[in-house]
């Protein structure tokens, strides 16, 4: 682990399982990563790879009663918040750690006015009068650049467009000036033009408010645009971790390469055959203990019955050391 003084969040060997009909299934299998202060860390992977479950474990918003955190540590500013009680956790969530959800319509209450919902955050986390909370909320809408904020405070969520709603959700997450924001696919439901507005807004607010961001997305373009560090997850495990530049310039794990090669860019020739990753993520119950990407590729994992190690191959660049999936490590070192 890195020096903890620079890291606002350290996730160490986190294990999250779900109670299912077929027994306890591990969705997050010993995931470790760090979030340096003021930086943006992206978590990328396909649906079902455990990226959202990891993030929701940090703030303990797992579906109940099925979701259970069974091991590991989550150090937020040096304190292990996995052992905080519910009241402490409620104070942290929305206070020190803000959460931006993918679907703004589901994150907002349809029967309350925008103003009431934003002001509520201030009332919950600060000793503040109703009037002051209302003013602070108006100020917040101004900060996320909503035109005519006084007027919008009286609107209901359905009055607003998708982009405007996402701004409200960002306002909710940032109301108490959190030091860490977890953004779960914040722009997936939006048009590219609106996505560009929202990402630009988040970047500006990040530098104004000096916060760290965990950006969960399946869009590698968004990762490249916004992130300093990247964590690549596959089937509940971290397979590779490095700075954004390093991941894009020098991916080592076969899964990372597969992801990067399968997106068409404006430079790929028209109608050329795109690279694909065969098959799909195995369901939780069928996960092997050995290398899970080998499992997907249908490789008999041979000697790799054990879980592959996770090694730092160059400063800050970590990769799962399955000999089949990371063949070019030897050439490099």
């Amino acid at each position, binding site marked *: 682990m890195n020096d903890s003084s620079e890291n606002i969040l350290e996730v160490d060997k986190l294990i999250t399982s779900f109670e299912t009909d077929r027994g306890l299934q591990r969705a997050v299998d010993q995931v470790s990563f760090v979030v340096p202060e003021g930086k943006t860390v992206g978590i990328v992977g396909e649906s079902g790879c455990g990226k959202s479950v990891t993030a929701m474990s940090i703030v303990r918003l797992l579906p109940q009663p099925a979701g259970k955190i069974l091991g590991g540590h989550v150090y937020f500013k040096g304190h292990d918040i996995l052992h905080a009680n519910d009241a402490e956790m409620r104070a942290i969530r929305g206070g020190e750690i803000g959460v931006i959800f993918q679907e703004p319509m589901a994150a907002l209450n349809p029967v309350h006015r925008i103003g009431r919902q934003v002001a509520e955050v201030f009332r919950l986390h600060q000793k503040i009068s109703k009037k002051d909370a209302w003013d602070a909320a108006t100020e917040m809408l101004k900060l996320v650049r909503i035109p005519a904020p006084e007027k919008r405070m009286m609107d209901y969520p359905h009055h607003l467009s998708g982009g405007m709603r996402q701004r409200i959700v960002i306002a909710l997450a940032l109301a108490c000036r959190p030091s860490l924001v977890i953004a779960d696919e914040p722009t997936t439901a939006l048009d590219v033009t609106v996505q*560009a507005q929202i990402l630009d807004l988040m970047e500006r607010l990040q530098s104004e408010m000096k916060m760290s961001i965990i950006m969960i997305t399946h869009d590698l373009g968004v990762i*490249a645009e916004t992130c300093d560090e990247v964590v690549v997850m596959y089937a509940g495990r971290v397979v590779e971790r490095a700075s954004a530049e390093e991941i894009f310039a020098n991916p080592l794990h076969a899964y990372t390469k597969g992801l990067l090669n399968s*997106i068409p*860019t404006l430079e790929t020739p028209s*109608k050329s055959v795109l690279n694909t990753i065969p098959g799909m993520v195995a369901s939780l119950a069928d996960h092997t203990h050995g290398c899970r990407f080998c499992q997907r590729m249908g490789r008999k994992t041979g000697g790799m019955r054990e879980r592959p190690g996770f090694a730092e191959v160059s400063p800050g660049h970590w990769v799962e050391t399955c000999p089949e999936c990371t063949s070019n490590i030897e050439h490099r070192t």
Partner: protein
Amino acid sequence: MTPLLSISDLRVHFPVRAGVLLRHTSAVKAVDGVSLDIAPGETLGLVGESGCGKSTLGKAVVRLLKPTSGTIRFDGMDISQASQRSLRPLRRDFQMIFQDPAESLDPRMSVRSIIEEPYIIHGIGSSTERMQRVNALLDRVGLPLSSADRYSFEFSGGQRQRIGIARALALNPKLIVCDEPVSALDVSIQSQILNLLVELQKDFGLSYLFIAHDLSVVKHISDRVAVMYLGKIVELASAETIYRDPRHAYTKALLSAIPSPDPKNRREKILLEGDVPSPIDPPAGSAFGHRMNHPRYEESIGLDLSLKEISPDHHVAADPCCLVEEDWKRLQSGPANIANRPS
């Protein structure tokens, strides 16, 4: 070459009713004067923000919606006002693939019955022949034969989309309208489906109207691309040209917004303010000029803002708010004021 599909001045308006008597007060002008051609074997990409009318246009083309006015010629025959009964035999030739295969496949039908249904409706083949054809289709779209007797909900998103494609292919259509066929899929699965669509096009000589909001995907699969804004086409050119040399301000903004998957090469973004305006009461002049608060907006009111050819096979709306001065002058003076259809 004669176009397979030829749309001319197509309008699809939805009535807005209000008041106690539900009087027809105004109209949502979802598609408002669109003209397009698609050649046999060609892919025409259609891009634009949500609410610009691209899905409505797609549905009107396969006559899931009745156009308010304008013509849709398919293989030379005007189908724009044809009755559902007279359309039925024609429907063999144009099919549709939907965005969400979970919602467009009947959960109570087995995969076999879903793919077989078009044959039954059109009275094709005996039951053994149909069975053979279904098996061949499953194989063609990369699904195991064992999937025939399972139900669509047992499959993942990518596999469901393959079922949707098999169903669309069943009657050997000439045109498939693909409405956001890969936007619900993960990138690795998305590339599998795109590869399949390209292969099928080569094998069967299909034409596609490919509707999507992901501009990199559209560039990859399309021969030509049309950019739609508030019910109108604002730019139309070959995929190569439109991405290399966009002329309309909206196209430029849209392209600049694509996140680049290369951290060292972050594009300078043109950030648009606000959202697409409401198609219920669109601005009188240039819709995009209105959104941008363009100083020449007043000038655009009353002008003919339809597509003009700015260079060979590159068409752009003649809109003073959205073109650089040089392009605007060229359109005003040039002899190239040909109508908006490439011949």
